[in-house]
Protein backbone atom coordinates (compact mmCIF):
# COMPACT_ATOMS: atom_id res chain seq x y z
CA UNK A 1 0.00 0.00 0.00
CA UNK A 2 3.03 2.20 0.33
CA UNK A 3 3.45 3.67 -3.10
CA UNK A 4 0.72 5.65 -4.77
CA UNK A 5 0.30 6.18 -8.48
CA UNK A 6 -2.59 7.39 -10.61
CA UNK A 7 -3.86 4.82 -13.09
CA UNK A 8 -3.59 7.45 -15.83
CA UNK A 9 0.13 7.80 -15.11
CA UNK A 10 0.59 4.06 -15.44
CA UNK A 11 -1.32 4.27 -18.73
CA UNK A 12 1.09 6.86 -20.11
CA UNK A 13 4.06 4.71 -19.18
CA UNK A 14 2.77 1.47 -20.65
CA UNK A 15 1.58 3.20 -23.80
CA UNK A 16 5.09 4.42 -24.51
CA UNK A 17 6.41 0.88 -23.93
CA UNK A 18 3.82 -0.62 -26.26
CA UNK A 19 4.66 1.96 -28.89
CA UNK A 20 8.24 0.75 -28.91
CA UNK A 21 7.23 -2.91 -29.02
CA UNK A 22 4.54 -2.73 -31.67
CA UNK A 23 4.61 -0.39 -34.66
CA UNK A 24 0.89 -0.88 -35.24
CA UNK A 25 -0.05 0.83 -32.00
CA UNK A 26 -1.40 4.31 -32.73
CA UNK A 27 -2.83 6.82 -30.27
CA UNK A 28 -5.54 9.45 -30.60
CA UNK A 29 -6.48 12.18 -28.17
CA UNK A 30 -8.89 15.10 -28.06
CA UNK A 31 -6.91 18.05 -26.68
CA UNK A 32 -6.30 16.43 -23.31
CA UNK A 33 -3.05 14.58 -23.95
CA UNK A 34 -1.32 16.15 -20.95
CA UNK A 35 -4.12 14.99 -18.65
CA UNK A 36 -4.74 11.56 -20.16
CA UNK A 37 -0.95 11.05 -20.33
CA UNK A 38 -0.98 10.03 -23.98
CA UNK A 39 1.54 12.86 -24.29
CA UNK A 40 4.25 10.39 -23.26
CA UNK A 41 3.49 8.35 -26.39
CA UNK A 42 3.17 11.50 -28.49
CA UNK A 43 6.66 12.64 -27.51
CA UNK A 44 8.24 9.33 -28.50
CA UNK A 45 6.15 8.51 -31.56
CA UNK A 46 4.83 11.78 -32.95
CA UNK A 47 4.07 10.23 -36.35
CA UNK A 48 1.77 7.65 -34.73
CA UNK A 49 -0.02 10.16 -32.51
CA UNK A 50 -3.08 12.04 -33.72
CA UNK A 51 -4.43 14.95 -31.74
CA UNK A 52 -7.95 15.30 -33.13
CA UNK A 53 -8.72 18.50 -31.25
CA UNK A 54 -11.87 18.95 -29.20
CA UNK A 55 -13.81 16.54 -31.41
CA UNK A 56 -14.42 13.28 -29.57
CA UNK A 57 -16.95 11.84 -31.99
CA UNK A 58 -14.56 12.32 -34.88
CA UNK A 59 -11.74 10.86 -32.80
CA UNK A 60 -13.63 7.62 -32.15
CA UNK A 61 -14.73 7.34 -35.78
CA UNK A 62 -11.16 7.93 -36.94
CA UNK A 63 -9.94 5.26 -34.53
CA UNK A 64 -12.40 2.83 -36.11
CA UNK A 65 -10.97 3.67 -39.53
CA UNK A 66 -7.42 3.14 -38.31
CA UNK A 67 -8.47 -0.25 -36.93
CA UNK A 68 -10.00 -1.08 -40.32
CA UNK A 69 -6.59 -0.46 -41.86
CA UNK A 70 -4.89 -2.86 -39.45
CA UNK A 71 -3.71 -0.49 -36.75
CA UNK A 72 -4.29 -0.90 -33.01
CA UNK A 73 -5.71 2.46 -32.01
CA UNK A 74 -5.90 3.69 -28.42
CA UNK A 75 -8.30 6.64 -28.21
CA UNK A 76 -8.24 8.69 -25.03
CA UNK A 77 -10.05 11.57 -23.40
CA UNK A 78 -11.99 12.06 -20.16
CA UNK A 79 -14.55 9.33 -19.49
CA UNK A 80 -17.49 11.70 -19.76
CA UNK A 81 -16.52 12.70 -23.30
CA UNK A 82 -15.30 9.29 -24.55
CA UNK A 83 -18.46 7.55 -23.44
CA UNK A 84 -20.86 10.48 -23.48
CA UNK A 85 -20.14 12.62 -26.51
CA UNK A 86 -18.92 9.77 -28.68
CA UNK A 87 -21.29 7.02 -27.54
CA UNK A 88 -23.03 6.36 -30.80
CA UNK A 89 -19.73 6.38 -32.67
CA UNK A 90 -18.54 3.83 -30.11
CA UNK A 91 -21.60 1.72 -30.78
CA UNK A 92 -21.91 1.99 -34.57
CA UNK A 93 -18.32 2.46 -35.74
CA UNK A 94 -16.47 0.46 -33.08
CA UNK A 95 -18.62 -2.16 -31.34
CA UNK A 96 -21.01 -3.12 -34.14
CA UNK A 97 -18.22 -4.04 -36.60
CA UNK A 98 -16.18 -5.39 -33.65
CA UNK A 99 -13.38 -3.01 -34.56
CA UNK A 100 -10.07 -3.40 -32.76
CA UNK A 101 -10.32 -0.07 -30.96
CA UNK A 102 -9.25 0.56 -27.37
CA UNK A 103 -11.07 3.39 -25.68
CA UNK A 104 -9.06 4.33 -22.64
CA UNK A 105 -10.77 7.03 -20.65
CA UNK A 106 -9.28 8.90 -17.70
CA UNK A 107 -10.91 11.22 -15.12
CA UNK A 108 -13.77 8.84 -14.40
CA UNK A 109 -16.06 9.03 -11.40
CA UNK A 110 -16.48 11.66 -8.71
CA UNK A 111 -12.76 11.86 -7.89
CA UNK A 112 -12.45 14.19 -10.89
CA UNK A 113 -13.12 16.63 -8.07
CA UNK A 114 -13.36 20.39 -8.55
CA UNK A 115 -14.49 20.37 -12.20
CA UNK A 116 -17.85 19.24 -10.88
CA UNK A 117 -20.84 17.20 -11.94
CA UNK A 118 -20.58 18.09 -15.62
CA UNK A 119 -17.25 16.30 -15.75
CA UNK A 120 -17.83 13.40 -13.36
CA UNK A 121 -18.97 10.33 -15.26
CA UNK A 122 -20.95 8.06 -12.97
CA UNK A 123 -22.77 6.24 -15.78
CA UNK A 124 -19.99 5.14 -18.13
CA UNK A 125 -19.64 1.54 -16.91
CA UNK A 126 -23.38 1.02 -17.32
CA UNK A 127 -23.44 2.59 -20.76
CA UNK A 128 -20.44 0.68 -22.09
CA UNK A 129 -21.51 -2.56 -20.46
CA UNK A 130 -24.81 -2.48 -22.33
CA UNK A 131 -23.08 -2.41 -25.72
CA UNK A 132 -22.65 -5.84 -27.35
CA UNK A 133 -19.05 -6.81 -28.20
CA UNK A 134 -17.64 -4.37 -25.66
CA UNK A 135 -15.20 -5.45 -22.97
CA UNK A 136 -15.15 -3.20 -19.89
CA UNK A 137 -12.12 -3.03 -17.61
CA UNK A 138 -11.74 -0.93 -14.46
CA UNK A 139 -8.24 -1.36 -12.98
CA UNK A 140 -7.64 -0.83 -9.29
CA UNK A 141 -4.05 0.41 -9.39
CA UNK A 142 -1.08 1.25 -11.57
CA UNK A 143 0.27 -2.29 -11.81
CA UNK A 144 -3.04 -3.67 -12.92
CA UNK A 145 -3.53 -0.79 -15.35
CA UNK A 146 -0.31 -1.65 -17.16
CA UNK A 147 -1.24 -5.31 -17.37
CA UNK A 148 -4.78 -4.53 -18.48
CA UNK A 149 -3.58 -2.18 -21.22
CA UNK A 150 -1.20 -4.87 -22.46
CA UNK A 151 -4.03 -7.40 -22.42
CA UNK A 152 -6.27 -4.99 -24.30
CA UNK A 153 -3.60 -4.50 -26.95
CA UNK A 154 -3.21 -8.26 -27.34
CA UNK A 155 -6.97 -8.84 -27.56
CA UNK A 156 -8.63 -8.36 -30.92
CA UNK A 157 -11.79 -6.33 -30.41
CA UNK A 158 -13.30 -3.29 -28.70
CA UNK A 159 -12.20 -2.60 -25.15
CA UNK A 160 -13.17 0.19 -22.77
CA UNK A 161 -10.68 0.87 -19.97
CA UNK A 162 -11.78 3.23 -17.20
CA UNK A 163 -9.00 5.13 -15.41
CA UNK A 164 -8.82 7.78 -12.74
CA UNK A 165 -7.28 11.17 -12.14
CA UNK A 166 -5.79 10.80 -8.68
CA UNK A 167 -3.11 8.71 -7.05
CA UNK A 168 -4.36 5.41 -5.66
CA UNK A 169 -2.59 2.86 -3.48
CA UNK A 170 -0.76 0.04 -5.22
CA UNK A 171 -2.42 -3.30 -4.40
CA UNK A 172 -0.65 -5.63 -6.80
CA UNK A 173 2.95 -6.54 -7.51
CA UNK A 174 4.54 -7.64 -10.74
CA UNK A 175 3.75 -11.30 -10.11
CA UNK A 176 0.03 -10.52 -10.47
CA UNK A 177 -1.46 -12.18 -13.53
CA UNK A 178 -4.16 -10.19 -15.23
CA UNK A 179 -6.55 -11.87 -17.65
CA UNK A 180 -9.59 -10.30 -19.28
CA UNK A 181 -12.71 -11.72 -17.63
CA UNK A 182 -10.94 -12.95 -14.51
CA UNK A 183 -11.53 -11.56 -11.05
CA UNK A 184 -9.30 -12.20 -8.08
CA UNK A 185 -9.80 -12.83 -4.42
CA UNK A 186 -7.66 -10.47 -2.36
CA UNK A 187 -8.74 -11.70 1.04
CA UNK A 188 -10.63 -14.73 2.24
CA UNK A 189 -13.61 -14.47 4.52
CA UNK A 190 -16.75 -16.37 5.45
CA UNK A 191 -19.35 -13.90 6.77
CA UNK A 192 -19.81 -11.78 3.66
CA UNK A 193 -18.01 -10.70 0.49
CA UNK A 194 -17.09 -7.30 -0.83
CA UNK A 195 -17.14 -7.36 -4.62
CA UNK A 196 -15.33 -4.23 -5.75
CA UNK A 197 -13.82 -2.59 -8.78
CA UNK A 198 -11.49 0.32 -9.52
CA UNK A 199 -10.38 2.47 -6.63
CA UNK A 200 -13.12 0.98 -4.45
CA UNK A 201 -11.18 -2.25 -4.18
CA UNK A 202 -8.67 -0.58 -1.86
CA UNK A 203 -11.60 0.79 0.18
CA UNK A 204 -13.01 -2.73 0.43
CA UNK A 205 -9.69 -4.10 1.68
CA UNK A 206 -9.64 -1.37 4.33
CA UNK A 207 -13.25 -2.15 5.27
CA UNK A 208 -12.44 -5.85 5.64
CA UNK A 209 -9.64 -4.93 8.01
CA UNK A 210 -11.97 -2.80 10.13
CA UNK A 211 -14.48 -5.64 10.24
CA UNK A 212 -11.80 -8.14 11.22
CA UNK A 213 -11.24 -5.95 14.30
CA UNK A 214 -14.83 -6.57 15.39
CA UNK A 215 -14.80 -10.27 14.62
CA UNK A 216 -16.40 -10.19 11.20
CA UNK A 217 -14.73 -12.22 8.47
CA UNK A 218 -15.12 -10.40 5.16
CA UNK A 219 -13.93 -11.76 1.84
CA UNK A 220 -12.71 -9.27 -0.78
CA UNK A 221 -13.15 -10.05 -4.45
CA UNK A 222 -11.73 -7.64 -6.99
CA UNK A 223 -13.47 -7.49 -10.37
CA UNK A 224 -11.32 -5.63 -12.89
CA UNK A 225 -13.32 -6.84 -15.88
CA UNK A 226 -16.89 -5.75 -15.32
CA UNK A 227 -17.75 -7.28 -18.68
CA UNK A 228 -17.42 -10.18 -19.29
CA UNK A 229 -17.75 -10.61 -15.52
CA UNK A 230 -16.18 -13.50 -13.60
CA UNK A 231 -19.43 -15.29 -12.80
CA UNK A 232 -17.91 -18.31 -11.09
CA UNK A 233 -15.88 -16.27 -8.62
CA UNK A 234 -18.89 -14.18 -7.64
CA UNK A 235 -21.27 -17.14 -7.45
CA UNK A 236 -18.82 -19.03 -5.24
CA UNK A 237 -18.58 -16.03 -2.93
CA UNK A 238 -22.37 -15.80 -2.81
CA UNK A 239 -22.76 -19.48 -2.01
CA UNK A 240 -19.98 -19.55 0.56
CA UNK A 241 -20.62 -16.27 2.39
CA UNK A 242 -24.32 -15.68 1.74
CA UNK A 243 -24.05 -11.88 1.56
CA UNK A 244 -22.55 -9.57 -1.04
CA UNK A 245 -21.70 -5.88 -0.85
CA UNK A 246 -20.70 -4.36 -4.19
CA UNK A 247 -18.48 -1.27 -4.29
CA UNK A 248 -17.82 1.05 -7.21
CA UNK A 249 -17.10 4.73 -7.88
CA UNK A 250 -20.08 4.82 -10.21
CA UNK A 251 -23.85 4.88 -10.09
CA UNK A 252 -25.39 1.88 -8.37
CA UNK A 253 -27.50 1.57 -11.51
CA UNK A 254 -26.09 -0.59 -14.27
CA UNK A 255 -22.46 -0.80 -13.26
CA UNK A 256 -20.74 -3.46 -11.18
CA UNK A 257 -23.62 -3.49 -8.68
CA UNK A 258 -26.08 -3.88 -11.52
CA UNK A 259 -24.06 -6.67 -13.12
CA UNK A 260 -23.76 -8.55 -9.82
CA UNK A 261 -27.47 -8.08 -9.05
CA UNK A 262 -28.38 -9.51 -12.47
CA UNK A 263 -26.11 -12.49 -11.95
CA UNK A 264 -27.21 -13.27 -8.39
CA UNK A 265 -30.87 -12.62 -9.12
CA UNK A 266 -30.87 -15.30 -11.79
CA UNK A 267 -28.45 -17.82 -10.37
CA UNK A 268 -27.95 -17.46 -6.65
CA UNK A 269 -30.15 -14.96 -4.81
CA UNK A 270 -28.44 -13.88 -1.59
CA UNK A 271 -28.40 -10.73 0.53
CA UNK A 272 -27.06 -7.87 -1.58
CA UNK A 273 -26.20 -4.24 -0.99
CA UNK A 274 -24.85 -1.96 -3.71
CA UNK A 275 -22.49 0.77 -2.53
CA UNK A 276 -21.89 3.49 -5.10
CA UNK A 277 -23.30 6.82 -6.20
CA UNK A 278 -27.02 6.73 -5.42
CA UNK A 279 -28.56 7.88 -8.71
CA UNK A 280 -27.17 11.39 -8.39
CA UNK A 281 -24.94 13.70 -10.35
CA UNK A 282 -21.56 14.65 -8.96
CA UNK A 283 -20.62 18.04 -7.58
CA UNK A 284 -17.54 20.22 -7.20
CA UNK A 285 -15.22 19.55 -4.30
CA UNK A 286 -11.95 17.93 -3.36
CA UNK A 287 -11.74 14.29 -4.39
CA UNK A 288 -11.25 13.02 -0.85
CA UNK A 289 -14.20 15.05 0.42
CA UNK A 290 -16.36 13.76 -2.40
CA UNK A 291 -15.59 10.14 -1.55
CA UNK A 292 -17.01 10.91 1.90
CA UNK A 293 -19.90 12.94 0.54
CA UNK A 294 -21.01 10.15 -1.77
CA UNK A 295 -20.56 7.43 0.84
CA UNK A 296 -17.62 5.68 -0.79
CA UNK A 297 -15.41 5.29 2.28
CA UNK A 298 -14.43 2.08 4.09
CA UNK A 299 -16.79 3.11 6.90
CA UNK A 300 -19.68 3.13 4.44
CA UNK A 301 -18.78 -0.38 3.35
CA UNK A 302 -18.58 -1.49 6.97
CA UNK A 303 -22.03 -0.04 7.56
CA UNK A 304 -23.43 -1.83 4.51
CA UNK A 305 -21.85 -5.09 5.67
CA UNK A 306 -23.35 -4.74 9.15
CA UNK A 307 -26.76 -4.04 7.66
CA UNK A 308 -26.61 -7.30 5.68
CA UNK A 309 -25.26 -9.30 8.60
CA UNK A 310 -28.19 -8.04 10.66
CA UNK A 311 -30.54 -9.61 8.11
CA UNK A 312 -28.77 -12.92 7.98
Amino acid at each position, binding site marked *: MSNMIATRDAYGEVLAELGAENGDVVVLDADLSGSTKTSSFAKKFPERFFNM*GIAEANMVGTAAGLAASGKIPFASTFAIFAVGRAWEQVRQSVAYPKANVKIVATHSGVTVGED*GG*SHQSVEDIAIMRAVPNMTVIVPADGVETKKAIRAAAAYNGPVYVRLGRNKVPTLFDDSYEFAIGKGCQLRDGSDLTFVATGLMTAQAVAAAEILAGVGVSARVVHIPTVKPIDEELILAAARETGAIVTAEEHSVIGGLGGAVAELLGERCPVLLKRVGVQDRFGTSGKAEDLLKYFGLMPENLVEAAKELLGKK
Partner: protein
Amino acid sequence: MKDKIARLQEKARKLRIDIVRTLHRSKSGHTGGSLSVIDMLTVLYYHKMRHDPANPKWAQRDRLVLSKGHAAPAQYVALADCGYFPKEDLQMLRQLGGHLQGHPDSKGTPGVEVCTGSLGQGLSMAVGMALGLSLDKSSNRVYAVLGDGELQEGQIWEAAMSAAHYRLDNLCILIDANGLQIDGEVAKVMNVESIGDKFRAFGCHVLEIDGHDIAAIVAALDEAEQVKGKPTAVVARTVKGKGVSFFENKASYHGVTPSDEELPRALQCLGDCCD
Protein backbone atom coordinates in the same frame (compact mmCIF):
# COMPACT_ATOMS: atom_id res chain seq x y z
CA MET B 1 -19.92 57.51 -24.84
CA LYS B 2 -16.22 58.08 -24.19
CA ASP B 3 -16.98 58.18 -20.47
CA LYS B 4 -18.99 55.02 -20.78
CA ILE B 5 -16.11 53.22 -22.51
CA ALA B 6 -13.70 54.36 -19.81
CA ARG B 7 -16.07 53.12 -17.11
CA LEU B 8 -16.38 49.75 -18.80
CA GLN B 9 -12.60 49.50 -19.12
CA GLU B 10 -12.27 50.21 -15.43
CA LYS B 11 -14.95 47.65 -14.63
CA ALA B 12 -13.14 45.02 -16.69
CA ARG B 13 -9.91 45.76 -14.82
CA LYS B 14 -11.68 45.32 -11.47
CA LEU B 15 -13.28 42.09 -12.61
CA ARG B 16 -9.88 40.79 -13.71
CA ILE B 17 -8.68 41.41 -10.19
CA ASP B 18 -11.68 39.49 -8.85
CA ILE B 19 -10.92 36.60 -11.22
CA VAL B 20 -7.28 36.41 -10.13
CA ARG B 21 -8.13 36.63 -6.43
CA THR B 22 -10.96 34.11 -6.70
CA LEU B 23 -8.85 31.58 -8.59
CA HIS B 24 -5.92 32.06 -6.25
CA ARG B 25 -8.20 31.22 -3.35
CA SER B 26 -9.90 28.24 -4.99
CA LYS B 27 -6.56 26.79 -6.17
CA SER B 28 -8.48 25.19 -9.00
CA GLY B 29 -10.05 26.60 -12.15
CA HIS B 30 -9.34 28.12 -15.53
CA THR B 31 -7.32 31.31 -15.53
CA GLY B 32 -6.33 31.95 -19.15
CA GLY B 33 -9.74 31.68 -20.78
CA SER B 34 -11.41 33.68 -18.00
CA LEU B 35 -9.05 36.60 -18.54
CA SER B 36 -9.43 36.52 -22.33
CA VAL B 37 -13.23 36.63 -22.26
CA ILE B 38 -13.85 39.16 -19.48
CA ASP B 39 -13.89 42.28 -21.67
CA MET B 40 -16.74 40.81 -23.71
CA LEU B 41 -18.64 39.72 -20.61
CA THR B 42 -18.16 43.19 -19.13
CA VAL B 43 -19.72 44.87 -22.16
CA LEU B 44 -22.57 42.34 -22.12
CA TYR B 45 -23.41 42.55 -18.42
CA TYR B 46 -22.74 46.26 -17.84
CA HIS B 47 -23.80 47.78 -21.12
CA LYS B 48 -25.58 45.67 -23.66
CA MET B 49 -27.83 43.14 -22.00
CA ARG B 50 -31.19 43.93 -20.50
CA HIS B 51 -31.22 42.03 -17.22
CA ASP B 52 -32.23 42.43 -13.60
CA PRO B 53 -30.02 40.87 -10.94
CA ALA B 54 -32.87 41.20 -8.42
CA ASN B 55 -35.08 39.17 -10.73
CA PRO B 56 -32.89 36.64 -12.54
CA LYS B 57 -35.86 34.99 -14.26
CA TRP B 58 -37.31 38.29 -15.50
CA ALA B 59 -39.15 37.38 -18.72
CA GLN B 60 -37.80 40.40 -20.61
CA ARG B 61 -34.15 39.63 -20.01
CA ASP B 62 -31.54 39.03 -22.68
CA ARG B 63 -29.83 35.65 -22.36
CA LEU B 64 -26.17 34.76 -22.12
CA VAL B 65 -24.89 31.25 -22.69
CA LEU B 66 -21.25 30.75 -21.73
CA SER B 67 -20.66 27.81 -24.02
CA LYS B 68 -16.98 27.77 -23.05
CA GLY B 69 -18.15 26.92 -19.56
CA HIS B 70 -14.69 26.49 -18.09
CA ALA B 71 -14.46 30.30 -18.06
CA ALA B 72 -17.11 30.22 -15.33
CA PRO B 73 -14.98 32.35 -12.96
CA ALA B 74 -15.31 35.27 -15.39
CA GLN B 75 -19.08 34.92 -15.42
CA TYR B 76 -19.27 34.39 -11.65
CA VAL B 77 -17.33 37.55 -10.74
CA ALA B 78 -19.56 39.56 -13.06
CA LEU B 79 -22.75 38.02 -11.68
CA ALA B 80 -21.58 38.62 -8.11
CA ASP B 81 -20.60 42.21 -8.87
CA CYS B 82 -23.96 42.82 -10.56
CA GLY B 83 -25.67 41.56 -7.41
CA TYR B 84 -27.06 38.18 -8.46
CA PHE B 85 -25.54 36.69 -5.31
CA PRO B 86 -23.23 37.87 -2.51
CA LYS B 87 -19.59 38.37 -3.39
CA GLU B 88 -18.67 36.12 -0.47
CA ASP B 89 -20.03 33.21 -2.49
CA LEU B 90 -16.95 33.52 -4.71
CA GLN B 91 -14.93 32.14 -1.81
CA MET B 92 -16.75 28.86 -2.23
CA LEU B 93 -15.86 28.49 -5.92
CA ARG B 94 -15.44 24.78 -6.69
CA GLN B 95 -15.88 23.85 -3.02
CA LEU B 96 -18.20 21.20 -1.71
CA GLY B 97 -21.36 22.90 -0.46
CA GLY B 98 -21.02 26.05 -2.56
CA HIS B 99 -23.27 26.76 -5.53
CA LEU B 100 -20.46 27.96 -7.79
CA GLN B 101 -19.68 24.73 -9.57
CA GLY B 102 -16.54 24.19 -11.62
CA HIS B 103 -18.71 24.75 -14.67
CA PRO B 104 -21.88 26.88 -14.84
CA ASP B 105 -24.87 25.15 -13.27
CA SER B 106 -28.29 26.73 -13.77
CA LYS B 107 -29.76 24.61 -10.97
CA GLY B 108 -27.89 26.50 -8.28
CA THR B 109 -26.51 29.78 -9.56
CA PRO B 110 -28.81 32.76 -10.19
CA GLY B 111 -28.10 34.36 -13.55
CA VAL B 112 -26.84 31.17 -15.17
CA GLU B 113 -29.30 30.13 -17.87
CA VAL B 114 -28.21 26.58 -18.72
CA CYS B 115 -25.55 24.04 -17.74
CA THR B 116 -22.39 24.22 -19.83
CA GLY B 117 -18.87 22.84 -19.51
CA SER B 118 -19.02 20.04 -22.02
CA LEU B 119 -17.72 22.02 -24.97
CA GLY B 120 -19.75 22.30 -28.15
CA GLN B 121 -23.21 22.12 -26.60
CA GLY B 122 -23.88 25.72 -25.64
CA LEU B 123 -24.59 27.11 -29.08
CA SER B 124 -27.38 24.59 -29.66
CA MET B 125 -29.04 25.64 -26.41
CA ALA B 126 -28.66 29.29 -27.45
CA VAL B 127 -30.34 28.45 -30.77
CA GLY B 128 -33.21 26.86 -28.85
CA MET B 129 -33.55 29.92 -26.62
CA ALA B 130 -33.54 32.21 -29.65
CA LEU B 131 -36.24 30.09 -31.30
CA GLY B 132 -38.27 30.17 -28.08
CA LEU B 133 -37.99 33.95 -27.81
CA SER B 134 -39.06 34.41 -31.41
CA LEU B 135 -42.06 32.11 -30.89
CA ASP B 136 -43.00 34.41 -28.02
CA LYS B 137 -42.53 37.47 -30.28
CA SER B 138 -40.00 38.71 -27.75
CA SER B 139 -37.51 41.40 -28.71
CA ASN B 140 -34.93 39.93 -26.34
CA ARG B 141 -31.61 38.69 -27.60
CA VAL B 142 -29.40 35.68 -26.98
CA TYR B 143 -25.62 35.89 -26.73
CA ALA B 144 -23.51 32.73 -26.99
CA VAL B 145 -19.84 32.90 -26.02
CA LEU B 146 -17.61 30.23 -27.56
CA GLY B 147 -13.94 29.29 -27.41
CA ASP B 148 -11.92 28.93 -30.59
CA GLY B 149 -10.80 25.40 -29.68
CA GLU B 150 -14.45 24.67 -28.99
CA LEU B 151 -15.16 25.31 -32.68
CA GLN B 152 -13.57 21.91 -33.35
CA GLU B 153 -16.73 20.25 -32.06
CA GLY B 154 -19.01 19.30 -34.94
CA GLN B 155 -22.10 20.26 -32.97
CA ILE B 156 -21.06 23.91 -33.19
CA TRP B 157 -21.47 23.77 -36.95
CA GLU B 158 -24.77 21.91 -36.73
CA ALA B 159 -25.94 24.72 -34.46
CA ALA B 160 -24.57 27.46 -36.74
CA MET B 161 -26.34 25.88 -39.70
CA SER B 162 -29.65 25.79 -37.84
CA ALA B 163 -29.23 29.36 -36.56
CA ALA B 164 -28.89 30.61 -40.13
CA HIS B 165 -31.61 28.30 -41.43
CA TYR B 166 -34.09 29.69 -38.93
CA ARG B 167 -32.86 33.24 -39.62
CA LEU B 168 -32.12 33.87 -35.97
CA ASP B 169 -31.22 37.55 -36.03
CA ASN B 170 -31.87 37.60 -32.28
CA LEU B 171 -28.77 35.44 -31.79
CA CYS B 172 -25.26 36.80 -31.53
CA ILE B 173 -22.33 34.38 -31.38
CA LEU B 174 -19.13 35.69 -29.81
CA ILE B 175 -15.96 33.72 -30.39
CA ASP B 176 -13.13 34.24 -27.91
CA ALA B 177 -10.40 33.64 -30.48
CA ASN B 178 -7.36 33.53 -28.24
CA GLY B 179 -5.49 31.10 -30.48
CA LEU B 180 -4.86 28.60 -27.70
CA GLN B 181 -6.44 25.46 -26.32
CA ILE B 182 -5.17 22.93 -23.75
CA ASP B 183 -2.59 21.06 -25.84
CA GLY B 184 -1.19 24.21 -27.44
CA GLU B 185 -1.94 26.52 -30.36
CA VAL B 186 -5.30 25.92 -32.01
CA ALA B 187 -3.59 26.20 -35.40
CA LYS B 188 -1.25 23.35 -34.50
CA VAL B 189 -3.64 21.06 -32.59
CA MET B 190 -6.48 21.23 -35.12
CA ASN B 191 -6.70 24.30 -37.26
CA VAL B 192 -10.09 26.07 -37.25
CA GLU B 193 -9.21 29.01 -39.47
CA SER B 194 -10.56 30.80 -41.24
CA ILE B 195 -13.16 31.22 -38.51
CA GLY B 196 -14.77 34.22 -40.18
CA ASP B 197 -15.04 32.51 -43.57
CA LYS B 198 -16.55 29.43 -41.97
CA PHE B 199 -19.31 31.32 -40.15
CA ARG B 200 -19.94 33.36 -43.31
CA ALA B 201 -20.27 30.15 -45.31
CA PHE B 202 -22.69 28.84 -42.70
CA GLY B 203 -24.90 31.89 -43.24
CA CYS B 204 -23.92 34.28 -40.48
CA HIS B 205 -23.18 37.97 -40.64
CA VAL B 206 -19.52 38.07 -39.56
CA LEU B 207 -17.53 40.76 -37.77
CA GLU B 208 -13.88 40.55 -36.78
CA ILE B 209 -12.73 42.70 -33.89
CA ASP B 210 -10.08 43.12 -31.23
CA GLY B 211 -11.76 41.38 -28.30
CA HIS B 212 -10.06 43.60 -25.75
CA ASP B 213 -11.11 46.87 -27.39
CA ILE B 214 -14.19 47.82 -25.39
CA ALA B 215 -15.36 50.37 -27.96
CA ALA B 216 -15.04 47.79 -30.72
CA ILE B 217 -17.05 45.24 -28.72
CA VAL B 218 -19.78 47.81 -28.10
CA ALA B 219 -19.85 48.74 -31.80
CA ALA B 220 -19.97 45.09 -32.89
CA LEU B 221 -22.88 44.28 -30.57
CA ASP B 222 -24.70 47.41 -31.76
CA GLU B 223 -24.21 46.37 -35.36
CA ALA B 224 -25.40 42.82 -34.62
CA GLU B 225 -28.67 44.27 -33.35
CA GLN B 226 -29.31 45.93 -36.70
CA VAL B 227 -28.72 42.80 -38.79
CA LYS B 228 -31.96 41.30 -40.09
CA GLY B 229 -32.67 37.73 -41.18
CA LYS B 230 -29.45 36.08 -40.02
CA PRO B 231 -27.40 35.52 -36.87
CA THR B 232 -24.22 37.49 -36.27
CA ALA B 233 -20.88 35.91 -35.42
CA VAL B 234 -18.30 38.20 -33.81
CA VAL B 235 -14.80 36.79 -34.16
CA ALA B 236 -13.04 38.50 -31.26
CA ARG B 237 -9.28 38.23 -31.44
CA THR B 238 -8.04 37.99 -27.89
CA VAL B 239 -5.01 37.13 -25.77
CA LYS B 240 -5.34 34.19 -23.42
CA GLY B 241 -4.44 35.35 -19.90
CA LYS B 242 -4.91 39.00 -20.92
CA GLY B 243 -3.89 41.54 -18.31
CA VAL B 244 -1.36 39.47 -16.40
CA SER B 245 1.82 39.66 -18.47
CA PHE B 246 3.25 36.32 -17.40
CA PHE B 247 -0.01 34.49 -18.09
CA GLU B 248 -0.44 35.98 -21.53
CA ASN B 249 -0.36 33.70 -24.56
CA LYS B 250 0.64 30.67 -22.53
CA ALA B 251 -1.29 27.43 -23.00
CA SER B 252 0.22 26.26 -19.70
CA TYR B 253 -1.99 28.74 -17.82
CA HIS B 254 -5.18 27.29 -19.24
CA GLY B 255 -6.18 25.39 -16.14
CA VAL B 256 -3.61 26.58 -13.64
CA THR B 257 -4.41 29.11 -10.92
CA PRO B 258 -2.17 31.90 -9.58
CA SER B 259 0.16 30.62 -6.87
CA ASP B 260 0.87 32.48 -3.63
CA GLU B 261 4.06 33.75 -5.20
CA GLU B 262 2.36 34.85 -8.41
CA LEU B 263 -0.62 36.56 -6.78
CA PRO B 264 1.06 39.87 -5.86
CA ARG B 265 2.78 40.08 -9.23
CA ALA B 266 -0.49 39.32 -11.01
CA LEU B 267 -2.34 41.98 -9.02
CA GLN B 268 0.44 44.45 -9.74
CA CYS B 269 -0.03 43.86 -13.47
CA LEU B 270 -3.68 44.74 -12.96
CA GLY B 271 -2.85 47.90 -11.03
CA ASP B 272 -4.05 46.51 -7.74
CA CYS B 273 -1.98 47.11 -4.64
CA CYS B 274 -1.29 44.04 -2.62
CA ASP B 275 -2.66 43.75 0.86
